[in-house]
Structures are given as structure tokens and as C-alpha cells.
């Protein structure tokens, strides 16, 4: 059973537009939600993360919106840049020591100049 689901599978936006990447999860014990981005032939790197005590986390052009009741979150990338083109993974970890991380299947984002 897929614990973390992402949509869309791929997304194309024009430079300057806002890209919205969606994520949902099953397990209510999840309490840490990092987003990782991965460029071709590179390993994933942490982009931004949120815990359920907040419903919003901002870091520059990247914002996570979190809805605990619906078990959904989304990553908004404002003023998208061609350099933002990458695969974005939503992940989740339960509040039992963070030994297990569950990743979604990823959203491939392409930003057209």
C-alpha cells in the first residue's frame, strides 16, 4: 500500500508561473514531512520540511501548505525558474524516532523559459 501519494506525475509551467505539487498520506502517526528535489544523475537533497504543528512553512519561493484533517499537503513554487526543473519527492516519517521514511513516486517539474 502506497503510504504517500503524489500528483501530478509530471507538471510543466512557464517561467514566472506558480507550480503546485500535491501530496497525501495515509498514516496519522506521520509527523514530519520533508520535500526533496532531485536533479538528473544526482542524489536527492532536502528542499523544505514541515511538522503538523504548523499549517504553512515558507522558504523563499517555496511554500508548504499542510492540511492535517485531510492528510494533504502541497508545495507551491512561486515565480518558477528553469533551474527549478527537477523531480520533487514528498516524504513522511512517523513520530517513532524517524527511522522509517516513506517517499511518494515524485512529480517531475519542467519550467519552460
Amino acid at each position, binding site marked *: 500500500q502506497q503510504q504517500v501519494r503524489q500528483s501530478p506525475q509530471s507538471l510543466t509551467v512557464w517561467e514566472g508561473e506558480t507550480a503546485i505539487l500535491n501530496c497525501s498520506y495515509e498514516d496519522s502517526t506521520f509527523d514530519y514531512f520533508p520535500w526533496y528535489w532531485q536533479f538528473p544523475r*544526482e542524489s536527492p537533497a532536502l528542499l523544505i520540511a514541515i511538522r503538523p504543528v504548523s499549517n504553512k512553512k515558507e522558504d523563499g519561493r517555496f511554500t508548504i501548505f499542510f492540511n492535517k484533517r485531510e492528510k494533504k499537503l502541497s508545495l507551491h513554487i512561486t515565480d518558477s525558474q528553469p533551474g527549478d526543473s527537477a523531480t520533487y519527492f514528498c*516524504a513522511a516519517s512517523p513520530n517513532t524516532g524517524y527511522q522509517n521514511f516513506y517517499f511518494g513516486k515524485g512529480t517531475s517539474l519542467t519550467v519552460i523559459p
Partner: protein
Amino acid sequence: AQTIHQWPVAEIKAVGSPLSLGCTIKGKSSPNLYWYWQATGGTLQQLFYSITVGQVESVVQLNLSASRPKDDQFILSTEKLLLSHSGFYLCAWSRGGGNTGQLYFGEGSKLTVL
């Protein structure tokens, strides 16, 4: 600063042959260590994690095994490779004891099984 190094960078192996991939973390004592597998264009599947030397927990069975012989070293191995083992293997670490949950990935090892 902490560094994580994986070896080899890439391997081409025959079905049925053995495999050993390694990972070393420098600059961090007693980290939590993880092995992840990623099929080409796919998601990250956690394989193993370890919170201390000699202790490894399996998350999913893929005919692979892992060991942590030293505090800073994590080894992934199998005696017989399958075609389905092809992919990108990523070692990662996180802070142990009071773990914040942040994962730091190594540069990965690309495995092609023919």
C-alpha cells in the same frame, strides 16, 4: 562538516554474481544510517536502517543484506544478483538520538545487472 561517501560510483555485474556496496560517513558520531534503492525514474524505497554498530533493521526484502561493521560504515551486499537489483543505491544518514528526521544522501551507486 559531515561528509558521506559511497563506493563504487557505478558497477556493471552479471546475474548471479555477488555485490558489495559501501558507504562511509565522516564528521558525525553515532549517526542513523539508511540504504535506499531507486529504480530509474522511480521512487525511493527504504531497504535498511541502522541506529548503532552491529544492529541493522530490514524494511523490505529484496534478497539483499546490510551490515554496519563500524560506527561510520554501512555495507550493502548480496551473494547472487538478480536483474531486478538494477538501479540507483543511495546511502543516507540522519542525526541519531533526538533525531530531527532530516536525511542526508550520498552521491549514490548506479548498479546495472545484465
